[in-house]
């Protein structure tokens, strides 16, 4: 069976060049980077090289990068680290209503422990407004955490403007205020520069850029103090205790180098494929709603709600034909509520439940898109034929002017 993987926002296949780079550190070069002997120093040198590559990916200094286990841990260290370190200066956080579940979960947990959290709307276009952040800032706000690009709809948030706002506040005397951004979806999909963004903390995950799972990094701007969440060792300049996973870090470094060097090529390719997919879909399937701003978004994501059908049914239908996607439907996530991100755009329950995320990768081909455009309309059509909602809409439309759904 032909297989097409369009779930690159969930994870990406490991690049063979990355595997090749990390293999020696699974075998002969097994040293502990904290050891003083040859083996340790060999491992230390490899970690340092990777640190320079990951720093270069985001325009940071190597000693501003903390290696850890992934995006969720990076978000934990950034948000809890700042909140706990500066609790005496203020206990107010500002975040958005479309953050990744890890950021949402951390903010909810802090709220239960006495912090106050302001969650800002993202409106129909799925983009936070700077003036809302300005209005929400208080003298006791210690952290603004807004993602760089959304993981479900790909919308790019105005983080650079938020960075300017935070710096303006600090210059005006609010010393204890920081900006964190979850940039997990961004590398290899848009240019990244921590100075241009003006953020103090930035989360990265390796497996979204063709490296293995289990490693990520937090950028911590020089002078930003945080409470370590992992204690008991001196690694990572006391910010994250635990022996470094040398092979994974080396893989992350190589993937970061490739993502930086190949950025323009990857972006152009993915955008062209994505736009062709969306144009083809609009031609072939009626009653679809594209979610999120069409311009201010990452080049590889297309999030579409299909009226009258539920996302999980469609996902499984596509999976049976070899196409892998994800959905905002509640059934598939195991929760009872459909995607809070799609709901935050003001979409009704039916549209939130019928949302499917197609996320392309650097190696997605024309043939992949052609295949999806062939099987997807059929799958939607089959599910709609089963849907009492569709039958009802059909009857109503026939009643008011003999139009089939989608006509006109």
């Amino acid at each position, binding site marked *: 069976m032909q297989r097409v993987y369009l779930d690159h926002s969930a994870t990406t296949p490991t690049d063979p060049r990355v595997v090749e780079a990390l293999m020696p550190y699974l075998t002969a070069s097994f040293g502990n980077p904290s050891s003083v002997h040859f083996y340790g120093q060999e491992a230390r040198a490899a970690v340092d090289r990777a640190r320079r590559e990951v720093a270069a990916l985001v325009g940071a200094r190597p000693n501003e990068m903390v290696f850890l286990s992934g995006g969720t841990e990076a978000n934990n260290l950034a948000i809890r680290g700042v909140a706990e370190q500066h609790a005496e200066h203020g206990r107010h956080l500002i975040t958005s209503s479309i953050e990744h579940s890890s950021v949402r979960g951390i903010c909810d947990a802090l709220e239960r422990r006495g912090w106050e959290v302001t969650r800002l709307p993202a409106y129909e276009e799925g983009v936070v407004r700077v003036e809302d952040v300005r209005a929400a800032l208080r003298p006791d706000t210690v952290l603004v955490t807004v993602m760089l690009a959304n993981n479900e709809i790909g919308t790019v948030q105005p983080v650079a403007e938020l960075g300017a706002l935070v710096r303006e506040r600090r210059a005006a005397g609010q010393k204890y205020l920081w900006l964190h951004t979850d940039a997990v979806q961004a590398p290899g999909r848009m240019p990244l520069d921590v100075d241009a963004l003006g953020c103090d903390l930035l989360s990265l995950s390796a497996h979204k850029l063709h490296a293995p799972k289990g490693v990520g990094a937090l950028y911590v701007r020089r002078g930003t103090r945080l409470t370590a969440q992992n204690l008991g060792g001196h690694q990572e300049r006391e910010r994250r205790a635990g022996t470094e996973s040398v092979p994974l870090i080396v893989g992350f470094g190589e993937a970061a180098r490739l993502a930086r060097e190949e950025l323009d090529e990857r972006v152009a390719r993915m955008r062209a494929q994505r736009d062709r997919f969306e144009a083809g879909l609009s031609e072939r399937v009626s009653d679809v709603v594209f979610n999120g701003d069409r311009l201010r978004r990452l080049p590889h994501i297309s999030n579409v709600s299909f009226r009258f059908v539920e996302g999980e049914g469609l996902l499984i*239908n596509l999976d049976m034909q070899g196409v892998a996607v994800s959905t905002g439907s509640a*059934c598939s996530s195991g929760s009872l509520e459909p995607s809070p991100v799609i709901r935050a755009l003001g979409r009704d329950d039916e549209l939130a439940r019928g949302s499917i995320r197609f996320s392309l990768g650097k190696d997605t081909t024309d043939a992949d898109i052609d295949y999806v455009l062939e099987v997807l309309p059929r799958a939607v059509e*089959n599910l709609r034929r*089963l*849907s*009492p909602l569709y*039958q009802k809409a059909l009857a109503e439309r026939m009643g008011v002017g003999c139009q089939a759904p989608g006509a006109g």
Partner: protein
Amino acid sequence: MYSETFKDHLANPRNAGDLEAADAVAEQTNPVCGDRLRLSLRLRGGRIEAARFLAYGCAPTLACGSALAELLEGLTPAEAARLTRSRITDALGGLPPRKQHAAALALETLRSALEQLA
């Protein structure tokens, strides 16, 4: 996660649609997740001659509708009333524990249709 039988019901739903001259049409909604199932039955000579379903919801809801409609044809209403949740899930090669609500919705819709026949 899902059996081959289950996937076959999804790929080739049995008895999908509405029914002309139906003797009973029931539609039930799961109030928690919003899934819907519509069941239409037609009787002939004291037996269910035709059963059709329409469904909106997650994959198990669609598959349970298909399995139910297939099981019902040829049964008397009294036999249909004795169908159990496990009979429906067995016909699908089983359901994961947290998807059992789909079979519950199927049974509830069936009961409501049978009440119309009584």
